[in-house]
């Protein structure tokens, strides 16, 4: 008993330090007055001010937000359709293949996903003439591909939990199949779709590897700009930027967690 008395708290403290010490140090140093990362020069919000004057970073942030917004939207549509087909359409030719393919981006190394998408875009440009060059559009398509996988997984589990007789009841009361989807299925799985959207948005915002493969000149996302800046030496305004991103991501994750919990309770 006495053994458990201190081992458990120790483990908790160790775990928290391991997980959060790097993040905390980053947040702390983002308020550092000194230009040198390792020297504490007093509290200041100087780097946040400097960040706002950095056109390159602001542009990249705007690109990232656009990419994340559109790829999250598209991923929710594609992912929901995929999940619906897999869960509700019964058996059909190629079902197993689709099951595998829809989750492939989850387990595929990002480098491979990025490279294969790049090759696809290049050959599409050669044969179809679209997309012309690489840039915002190709990044959005690439992010939609792997975000849709996450949305599909979330939507699939919600659809499986959903009582199928709800849809049958609506059919029975005179609604056609399309009507049933919009009247019943969609509202019931909406919480899952919202959390899927937020997850897709966050993942897109985070991605460096795939975006690096498929982006072109003039379309650098935030992670790409940060990465190239850090390679030239850590500058303190990156700390400030990172702190802001951490804040946004934390809020998004909290909302997702809260929505999933609420959904679990409502679904009894």
């Amino acid at each position: 008993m006495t053994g458990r008395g201190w081992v458990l708290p120790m483990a908790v403290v160790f775990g928290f330090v391991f997980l959060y010490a790097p993040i905390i140090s980053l947040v702390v140093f983002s308020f550092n007055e000194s230009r040198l990362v390792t020297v504490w020069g007093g509290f200041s919000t100087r780097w946040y001010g400097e960040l706002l004057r950095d056109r390159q970073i602001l542009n990249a942030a705007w690109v990232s937000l656009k990419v994340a917004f559109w790829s999250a939207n598209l991923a929710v549509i594609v992912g929901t359709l995929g999940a619906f087909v897999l869960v509700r359409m019964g058996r059909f030719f190629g079902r197993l293949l689709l099951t595998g393919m829809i989750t492939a981006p989850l387990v595929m190394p990002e480098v491979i996903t990025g490279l294969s998408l790049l090759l696809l875009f290049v050959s599409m440009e050669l044969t179809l003439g679209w997309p012309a060059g690489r840039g915002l559009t190709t990044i959005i398509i690439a992010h939609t591909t792997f975000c849709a996988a996450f949305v599909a997984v979330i939507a699939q589990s919600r659809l499986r939990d959903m009582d199928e007789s709800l849809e049958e009841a609506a059919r029975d009361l005179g609604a056609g199949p399309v009507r049933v989807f919009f009247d019943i299925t969609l509202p019931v799985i909406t919480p899952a779709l919202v959390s899927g959207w937020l997850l897709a948005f966050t993942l897109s915002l985070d991605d460096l590897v795939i975006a690096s493969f498929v982006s072109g000149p003039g379309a650098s996302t935030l992670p790409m700009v940060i990465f190239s800046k850090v390679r030239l030496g850590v500058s303190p305004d990156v700390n400030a930027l990172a702190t802001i991103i951490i804040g946004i991501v934390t809020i998004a994750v909290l909302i997702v967690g809260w929505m999933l919990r609420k959904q679990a309770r409502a679904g009894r």
Partner: protein
Amino acid sequence: MSEPQIAADTRPWRDPARQPFIEIRNITKRFGDFTAVNDVSLGIHRGELFCLLGGSGCGKSTLLRMLAGFETPTEGAILIDGQDMGRVPPDRRPTNMMFQSYALFPHMTVEKNVAYGLLREGMSRREAYARAAEMLKMVKLESFGRRKPHQLSGGQRQRVALARALIKQPKVLLLDEPLGALDKKLREETQFELIRIQETLGVTFIVVTHDQDEAMTLATRIGVMRDGVIEQVGEPREIYENPKSRFVADFIGSVNLFEATVEAAAPDMMRLACPDAGGAVLVPPQTGLTRGQTVWGALRPERITLSRDRPDSARNVLRGTVEDVGYVGHMSTFRVVLDTGRMIRVTEPNNLREGKPISWDERVWASFRPEAFKVLTE
């Protein structure tokens, strides 16, 4: 047995010339290798409260779902009011269904749930909600319209589901285990409520249930199902008193089954050799039996009388010892071991009985009338 004559139009199934309202013609449903419903034919009349009764996996729910249009029959046809339902999707059928899980739409209020069917018909919102309010009044939930389903109790949800299924005034209402999720007391009250509503609206009800008491209380007629086949169709009394097969006799209520051989047919009585019962059993003469044929006898526990002294008048008398007595309040159940070693169940009502009640380990005579011993050939 004299019973009041009821006009044929309240029991249209007694008139063979009458055209049934719902005709199920040689319906078969197979899922892969598994045959869920096997060549079922059935006619159900307008205004009936028909119960499909059977254990789990007997095909009763599949049959109901084919009537609703959720499953397509592999073979056969379903006609409702003379119209072939073959290619009619569920949203175009003149049927509505009440689901076992109730299937209330969780994101809609109670009144919207009830009004949904009318809104899909294209009725104006105002009118649909007014009608929904009427339906909710009928099921005594008028003040619950603004609530969400998860704010209701099980019994209230059941009534909302009923109101929702009835609002379009379907020709046929299909009910899948309508009372299955309710506790015993509520279930008994709701049974009579269902009958009241059915009689008020005159809608044809088809109820699927595994509960024989429920079927007996609710039904105008019962169809007993087993392994995808309807074993017997009849009024509750008929099914109970004259089961056609051992399965039906055993499934409905409790019964003592005896194996016997046809021995001799006298003009007024038929003799069966029944070694388990300790000799011969006399039954009323019946057609279609030949000497030496093996038959089964079904004897209901309440048709047996126990006594300490040998009854003079009884034609069939068995000798045995009381092994166990169970007191259930309105009646007692006895387990009597006959001298042949066979155990039988006997129930006797606990009304004013003279003398000391029969108790454990007593030697008794068990007697029954010839008509009580139902001869089954299946």
